[in-house]
Structure formats: C-alpha cells, structure tokens
C-alpha cells in the first residue's frame, strides 16, 4: 500500500469550492444553519418542521448549483448533448415523470374527485407526516436499496438476477434462525446481530451461486433458472420451518421472536427521526453501496466484471476468465440480496412466516437498479425515491385509493426507461434546443468574453 488516500487534494478541492464563487459559501452557511441552529429550537412544532425542511431543500439546491458552476469552470468545452451520463440521467427523470402522469390518469379515471389530492399525497410521499414518516420511509427503503444494488451489480456483468427474491428469503431465514437459536453470542454487544447478518450474507451468496454456476458451466439461462430458484427457496424454507418445532410458533404460523441481542441496533437514529422505526439499516445499505462502488470502479476485478458484461467474447480474448467472473458476480449479487433479507427480518415485530409468497422486494430491486442507472450511488437515491412513493401509497389508503397504484407507476417507469432509444432522442433534442440559453448561462458563469466563445466553437 504505497499510494494512500490524498487528503490534501480533498481539502484543496473544498477550499476552491468555497472560495471560487458565492454559491459555495452560502451553501456551507445554510448547511451549518440546518445542522446546528434550526433543529435545536424548531423541530417540535409543525411550522418548525416545515422551516427546517425548506432550509434543507434550499441548502441542497444551492450546493448543487455550486457544484454545477464549479464543474463548468473546470470543463470549459463540455457539450451536454454528447454526455452519456447526463442524457441517461435525464432519461430516468423523464421516465419518472411519465410514470407519475400515467398514475395520475388512472387515478383520475377511477376516482375523479380525489385524483389530484391523492396525487399530491404520492408526491409528498415520505414527507407526509414530518420526521416520523421520513424515518419510516428510510426504514422501508433499506431492503429495496439492497436488492437494487444486488440486481445492478449482476447487471454490470451482463446477468439479469431476477432471483433476488429467493436469495433474500434464504438469507432472511438463516438470519432469523441465528437470531433465535445462537444465544451464546448474546454477551458481546452487536456480535449476535453481526453474525446473523453474516449468516444471511453467506446464505444469499450460496443461493446466488447456483444460477451463476448453471449459467457458466451448463449454459442455463439465468433468468429462467433464478425464477425456478425463487419458488424452490420459498417452498424449501417453509418446509424447514415447519419441520423444526424449536423455531416454529405453530399456533400463530410464524417463527418465534428473535432475541433482543440480534435486533438491528438504532444508534440514536430514532432520536433524530422521532416516532419512526428507523435503524442503522440505512448505514449498512450505504456502506455496501460504497463497497460495491469500489469493487466496480476501483479494482481490476471490477474492470473484468464490466468487461464480461459489455462483451463476453472480447473479454475472453483479452484473457479474462468469463466463467469465473459470472459465478463471482452472482455470488456477490446474492450476498447483497441476502443482507436485504436480514435487514427486513432482524427487527422486532417483523415476523417471518412460512408463506408461499415471492417477496416483492426482489422485483422492485430491478426497477430501482434501472432507475439508478446501475450505479451504486444512483441506486441509493432511486431506492429512497421508491421508499417515498411507497409511503405515499400507504397514506393513499386514507383516501379511496388502493396502494397498488404505486406498483402501476413503477411498472410504467421501468417500461418507459426500457424504451431508452426514444427517450434519449427526446432528451438530446431538448438539450440542443436549450443550447443557446445554455451558452448564455455558460458565458455568465465563466465570465467569458465573446472571443473566447468563438475559440471554443472552433475547436469543437
């Protein structure tokens, strides 16, 4: 380890961000206000919450604008219509908007009087009832973020892991089993919980390895095999539960409660988001996103995985062991899905039932992975967005709507984002249409004289 992380680089980066334009300074000031001043005397009341929320929104806005300005100062000849991440990102946004509009239309057809009111409830989502609903939104987003990460990781290697559902249930079973039975671990703080999560990780990895091995060595289509494995996991787990009277609470048709030592710790997060079920699951999810990001973008192994996904034959020609990479990719993908299972069931009151039902998180993960553009950090934001929609759906039940409308919206969003081509054309067109205004803004930001501008044009 010769090359260490360069902190001075980061510090100088922040320094230039703050000093180069007034957005940076204002943003930091607002962040300071949000973190230390407004919560201390305002959170208890509804108005205080609203002010707090607005400070947060404005802070985020200013910080993002500042970042954009800094970006343009660095990259003077940036052409938006040729930037792939920008176009696909805007494609995702467009897909979300179209999905919401379709949802609104269906709601209007079903129940015209309450349609717009209901739509607002969906849009407000996790913000409907203050910090409590915000915390609950994060709580429910965690397993979805994790399955999304699982699907997106396999997708990078060109594999479609539709079996996250089965890997999740298998991991969850092992986690809960450890949570009930391994009481000898209860002495050391968090050790029991950690071992349970580790068990889920290994179980999910094992279940994910099967379609990987079948794909690599027997050429079995991983989509069909992992669908079959979903059903097998559900039945097998049900059989194992019903056969073991020491874990099966027969009269209530569920597993016994896990021991308190195996419950996911909260580390004071429930003090910030008062009245919600939030625990450190979100920290686990973000940590895993960072780990996957490092694997994918900072290691040779990740480079090989992506190479196999982009062109299996070319990767083979370059000396990459495609079979090994396929299996490893599925193992990692399955492990993450297994952790998702642990995060759902390692909590009080989250009873594990031997039902013959495929958990929907596995399929929602596909949507999240697509919306997040298969990038670990994108998936985290897409997962939070879904969590917000999903909370909105719960509050919809107070009106005369059924929460399945959320699933319709999500399905439309996936479908529209699958229509990539037409969306990207639309986005590119819009960017070109905007480019005159865009040039003007750029000139203001860069404080360029018109002569610089023409020089830039000549090099393009």
């Amino acid at each position, binding site marked *: 380890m010769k090359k260490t992380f360069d902190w001075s680089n980061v510090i100088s980066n922040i320094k230039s961000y703050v000093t180069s334009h007034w957005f940076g300074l204002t943003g930091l000031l607002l962040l300071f206000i949000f973190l230390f001043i407004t919560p201390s005397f305002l959170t208890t009341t509804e108005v205080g919450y609203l002010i707090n929320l607005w400070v947060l929104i404005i802070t985020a806005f200013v910080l993002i604008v500042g970042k954009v300005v800094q970006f343009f100062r660095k990259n003077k000849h940036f052409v938006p219509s040729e930037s792939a991440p920008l176009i696909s990102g805007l494609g995702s946004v467009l897909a979300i908007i179209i999905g919401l509009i379709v949802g609104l239309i*269906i709601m209007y057809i*079903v*129940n015209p009087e309450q349609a717009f009111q209901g739509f607002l409830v969906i849009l407000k989502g996790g913000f409907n009832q203050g910090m409590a609903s915000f915390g609950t939104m994060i709580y429910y987003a965690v397993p979805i973020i994790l399955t999304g990460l699982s699907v997106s990781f396999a997708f990078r290697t060109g594999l*479609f892991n*539709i079996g996250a559902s089965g890997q999740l249930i298998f991991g969850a079973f092992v986690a809960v089993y450890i949570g009930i039975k391994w009481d000898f671990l209860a002495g050391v703080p968090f050790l029991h919980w950690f071992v349970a999560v580790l068990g889920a990780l290994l179980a999910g990895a094992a279940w994910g390895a099967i379609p990987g091995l*079948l794909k690599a060595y*027997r*050429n*079995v*289509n991983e*989509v*069909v*095999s992992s*669908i*079959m*494995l979903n*059903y*097998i996991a559900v*039945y*097998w787990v*049900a*059989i194992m539960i*019903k056969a073991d009277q020491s874990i099966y609470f027969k009269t209530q048709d569920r597993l016994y409660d896990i021991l308190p030592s195996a419950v996911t710790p909260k580390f004071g997060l429930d003090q910030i988001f008062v009245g919600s079920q939030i625990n450190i699951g979100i920290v686990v999810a973000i940590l895993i996103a960072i780990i996957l990001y490092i694997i994918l973008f900072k290691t040779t192994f990740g480079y090989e995985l992506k190479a196999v996904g982009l062109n299996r034959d070319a990767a083979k020609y370059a000396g990459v062991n495609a079979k090994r990479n396929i299996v490893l990719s599925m193992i990692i993908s399955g492990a993450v899905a297994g952790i998702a299972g642990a995060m759902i069931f390692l909590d009080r009151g989250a009873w594990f039932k031997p039902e*013959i039902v495929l958990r929907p998180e596995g*399929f929602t993960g*596909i*949507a999240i992975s*697509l919306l997040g553009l298969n990038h670990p950090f994108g998936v985290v934001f897409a997962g939070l967005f879904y969590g917000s929609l999903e909370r909105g759906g719960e509050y919809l039940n107070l009106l005369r*709507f*059924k929460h*399945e*409308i*959320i*699933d*319709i919206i*999500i*399905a*439309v969003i*996936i*479908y529209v*984002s*699958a*229509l*990539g*081509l*037409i969306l990207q054309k639309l986005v590119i067109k819009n960017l070109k249409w905007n480019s005159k205004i865009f040039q003007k803004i750029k000139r203001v930001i860069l404080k360029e004289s018109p002569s610089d501008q023409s020089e830039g044009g000549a090099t393009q």
Partner: protein
Amino acid sequence: MSFLDLLYYLVPLIIASAVPLSVVALGALFSERSGVVNIALEGIMLMGAFVGAVVIRSLQANSSLSTTSIALIGLGVGAVVGMVFSVAHAFASIHMKSNQIISATALNMFALAFGSFIARTFNNTIIISTQDVFRIPSVPILGDIPFIGNLFFKGAYLSTYVGVIIFIIGIVVLYKTKAGLRLRSCGENPQAADSLGINVYRVRYAGVLVSGALAGLGGVIFLMSFAQKFLMTVSGFGFLALAVLIFGNWKPNKIILAGIFFAMTRVLAVSFNAIPIISDLGLTLDHYLMVPYITTLIVLAFVSKNSAAPRAAGEPYDAGKR
C-alpha cells in the same frame, strides 16, 4: 382404488395442466422463432385470465347465454386482451430496440399491479369467483368408446379441446405455410430474410402478437381448469411454459411431451395422497409443490448445453449488421 380408477382420476388432471402449459409454450415458440424473447408471458396470461374472469363472471350473473357460448366468449376475450397487451412488448423490443427482458419484466409487474388495483378498487378484494360449469359430461360419440372414451372424453373441460385444436393449428401454420417459414427465418437470420424482401419488423410483430394471443388464451384455459376462484395469480405457469419451451428444444412435438412431463410433476402435488406408493413416503404437500421447479432446474441443466435456440432470439434487428 384400482389401477384403472387411478388412471381415470389422474389422466384428466394431467391433461388439464398440460394444455395451458403447452398452449402458452407454443406462444413462446412463435415469439422466439420470430426472434423476440418473451418473458412477459406470465403477465400476459395474468391479464388474459383477469379480464376473462371478469367477463365470465358478469356474463354468468347477468345474461342468459348458454355455458358453451360463455366459455367461448371468455376464451376469445382472453386472446384479444393478451394480443393487445403484448403490443407494448412488441413495440419496445422491435421498434425501440430496448432490452427485451426489462420491458417484459415491466409488463409482468404492470399486469399484477393493474389487476389487483382494479379488482380491489371496484370489488374490495382481489378474488374473482366464477361458477365452475365448464366440464363436458361426455362428448357425443367419442365418449362411448370403451377405454379411451373414459380417459379423454368424459368430464373434461371445453377449454381443453379448444386448446388442443389451437395447438394443432399453430403447428400447421408454423411448419406448413409460407408465413411460418418466414417467421422462422426471421428468428434464425433476419438479415438474410430481409435481403429476400421479407419485412422483419412486421413478421416479428406478428410473432409477438400471436404469442400474446396464445398466452391470453392460456390464461383463460388456466382459469377454467383450475380456479373457480381467481386469486390474481397463474401460479408461475408463464415461466414454466418458458421452461417447457427450452426443454422441448423449440420443437412443437417435443413441447407437447415436455408439457405432459411438467403437468405430471404438478399433478403429483395434487394427488400424492391417492397414489399408494408415493403417499407412504411421508413427505408434506410443500415437498410435492416444489417438485416441478426442481425438475425444471435439473432438466435445464442437462438440456441447455446443446440447445437449438433460434440464433437471433433476444437480439434487436439491426439491418446494418452482418
């Protein structure tokens, strides 16, 4: 129970499972042979079965039509709904050149969400109950043949016969007509087909639409043979049909055998108590319900290595590619 009684009990059950599986697998065959992978079959089946159930239920309650015509209307509605729904998949995968698995997954999710949403909005429950009156006591002349009559022509469902007829028509179209040949050529080498003046886009649209119609029909057949109460699920039959297709190596005659094989594994779960040797094993219902999926996995592991999948299936058509 004597052996003959057992046979009379099991064979109709196997047929009732095998027919929807084979019909939907035939639909998958049409789509894949034209070059489009259609994993949306599960969703299309569900959509067909859902709308079919609603139509059948309202006809049974409000009209004085005969049982036969209600059944035929239900089957027709299922086919049309399936066809209309599959247009979305065809548009995405043919015109938009999008990832066929993603758009199909979206349709699967949409079908389930849409069905549950509509059913719960208007009826407060996802269960749609229809009357189970579609059995034919005995087919006229054919039911009187001593052994075969008892086996195949007594107490079977009308939808079964419709399914068998459709299956035969499907094979004839695919292998004995010009359109069938064109369809198959588009799945193997669309560029060559294009050079001979065949409109690849149009042929692929036809393939996907036919597969949608067959899947919708299969959904209603499933509804009539299994579910007096439609619970907004087709028990993974759409996915199993894909396994049947792969096991049948993309050939209709083998698809029938594969369909019967899978049907037998399913019937095992329903009837394991009635079969003397198997009921002694002491396994639970869950074990037998798991069998079809495990056999699928094992079979796929042995069959997939040398599969005769259409070469261009799953690839968007690119006229400039060699």
